[in-house]
């Protein structure tokens, strides 16, 4: 047991944040999120929104792949379903924004259940292929069903409005995206404090014993697919309000790979992993671009020469983290925690 964490009630012992440093860091993070749009310029607020959208999608995928052990390479298609649902409702129906987001999530969840059906029989790489196939079918639908999706041209949106406020600039969008992201990540974290999340992990670790314990495996696998797709659908809906145009090419297969990489690099099967992974995958390319710009005065034609290098460095970083931190970036956080646990008495 960690020193200084004795609790007097079981409720306190099973809280989300059990140690004082955890509580302090969470408070710092929330305060940081609250002041971010006031302290940074529009560009960084834009990036923050992008990170938060990716955090929602990656957290969903983490529930499915990291916690339930079902690999999906079709996650981008569920984002697309959410985005198209929102765009279509905005264009043709005019329902309120929050309702549109919910509808996008629920439709994605429904289709996620159908896509998840093969998971009863196939696992691992085979399931990954099945989900890719599903995403290609959906892509075909997005291109061909022009009456609803606008075909290859896609759908353009007017700025969304919440409580009478039009979401035009990035700061306004931030105040929509950030609270939703915080709520959804908290929800995912909560899930693993009770029977639902435990059942997901049980199925991942040893499905035969899960069955003996009375866990209906197919039902829980489909539940996990539905939940992951719901998260993707909401993220896609926010994406639609953010970029205000949805086309079949908005969510390519590369986005699915991007999200899976985020989960793996961040740390599979930990909530923090999905968050850090999405942060890393979204921000590092930008930071590298910054680095290239800084080198501009030193090396002539820096942009031209170094932008391919930037991609290589990004790839090398991912490979490096996979080799040196196979448990993901969260493992670094854990190591820092362990270091300071008895600091300065033992280091």
């Amino acid at each position, binding site marked *: *047991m960690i020193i200084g964490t004795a609790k007097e009630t*079981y*409720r306190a*012992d*099973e809280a989300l944040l059990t140690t004082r440093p955890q509580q302090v860091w969470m408070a710092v993070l929330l305060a940081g999120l609250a002041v971010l749009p006031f302290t940074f310029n529009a560009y960084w607020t834009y990036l923050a929104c992008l990170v938060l959208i990716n955090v929602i999608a990656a957290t969903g995928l983490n529930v499915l792949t990291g916690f339930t052990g079902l690999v999906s390479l079709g996650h981008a298609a569920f984002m697309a379903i959410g985005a198209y649902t929102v765009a279509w409702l905005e264009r043709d129906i005019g329902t309120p924004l929050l309702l549109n987001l919910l509808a996008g999530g629920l439709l994605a969840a429904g289709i996620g259940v159908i896509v998840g059906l093969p998971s009863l029989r196939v696992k691992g790489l085979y399931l990954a292929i099945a989900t890719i196939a599903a995403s290609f079918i959906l892509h075909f639908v997005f291109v061909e069903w022009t009456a609803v999706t606008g075909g290859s041209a896609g759908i353009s949106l007017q700025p969304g409005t919440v409580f009478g406020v039009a979401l035009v600039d990035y700061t306004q969008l931030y105040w929509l995206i950030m609270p939703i992201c915080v709520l959804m990540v908290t*929800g*995912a974290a*909560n*899930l693993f*404090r*009770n*029977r*639902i*999340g*435990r*059942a997901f*992990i*049980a199925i991942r*670790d*040893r499905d*035969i*014993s*899960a*069955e*003996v*314990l*009375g*866990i*209906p*495996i197919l039902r829980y696998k489909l*539940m996990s697919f539905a*939940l992951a797709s719901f998260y993707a659908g909401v993220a896609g809906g926010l994406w639609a309000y953010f970029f205000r145009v949805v086309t079949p090419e908005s969510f390519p297969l590369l986005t699915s790979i991007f999200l899976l990489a985020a989960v793996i690099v961040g740390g599979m*099967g930990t909530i923090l992993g999905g968050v850090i992974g999405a942060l890393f995958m979204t921000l590092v390319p930008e930071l590298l671009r910054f680095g290239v710009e800084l080198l501009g005065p030193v090396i002539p034609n820096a942009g031209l020469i170094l932008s391919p290098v930037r991609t290589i460095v990004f790839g090398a970083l991912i490979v490096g983290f996979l080799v040196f931190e196979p448990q993901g970036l969260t493992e670094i956080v854990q190591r820092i925690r362990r270091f300071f646990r008895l600091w300065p008495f033992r280091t």
Partner: protein
Amino acid sequence: MPEARGATLEVDNVTLAFGGLKVLRGVSFAAQAGSVTALIGPNGAGKTSMFNCISGFYRPSAGTVRLDGQDISRVKASSRAALGMARSFQNIALFRGMTVLDNIKLGRHAHLRTNLLQGLLHLGPAAREEEALRAEIERKIIDFLEIDHIRNKPVAMLSYGLQKRVELARALAMQPRILLLDEPVAGMNREETEDMARFILDVKDEWGVTILMVEHDMGLVMDISDHVAVLNFGAKIAEGRPEEVQNDPHVAEAYLGSGDPAALMRRLHAEESAA
């Protein structure tokens, strides 16, 4: 758990065939409510297949399995937990990455009611249910099996004997009326075996749970069982009280190849003093 009363399990004329291979041929026996029944036999006799039929992984080709008179042969494996059936596995089937506490909590899954939405919010009902579960597990199971010092350890870090004990704890969390133990003391040293024997008897006496076990350790079988059924090549060859089975020439023949009960006793004693 006072609500857990033992259930009677009756296996009636169960046959299991994989293609032309008959693994079980018309086996019948019963485990009486609140007793310890042992299923023994040489390797390959069909003991684990019998267990898999009882717990629902295999569907018998013929015959029935009844729990308190109710035919459960067609009930899905995952639905048998709710009927009060719990089992442990020969090669431990714990969730290795999880803590001891989470493993035990999973045992109660079928009796909990939190749904997905409540789970995401973890307020009100879900939080109360979890708290009550934790309190009950602490009071009734963790204390009872003397595993309070390891409750927050990941299972993978524990010794083999402790892992077996955690598996028993998880099975007890299922509020079973019948407990199927597949080789509960296999690979254990003398001290661990004696601990496990004590726990099995305590479970029977204090919880009133019916126990059916497959076991190769004849010392344990003879000491703690009320009733023994012997399988050989998929057929039942003997049944009765431990001392009756010990003196049965068919049993001696199955184990030794010669029908002399005295030889079997000598070998048992030799094994015991070697252990």
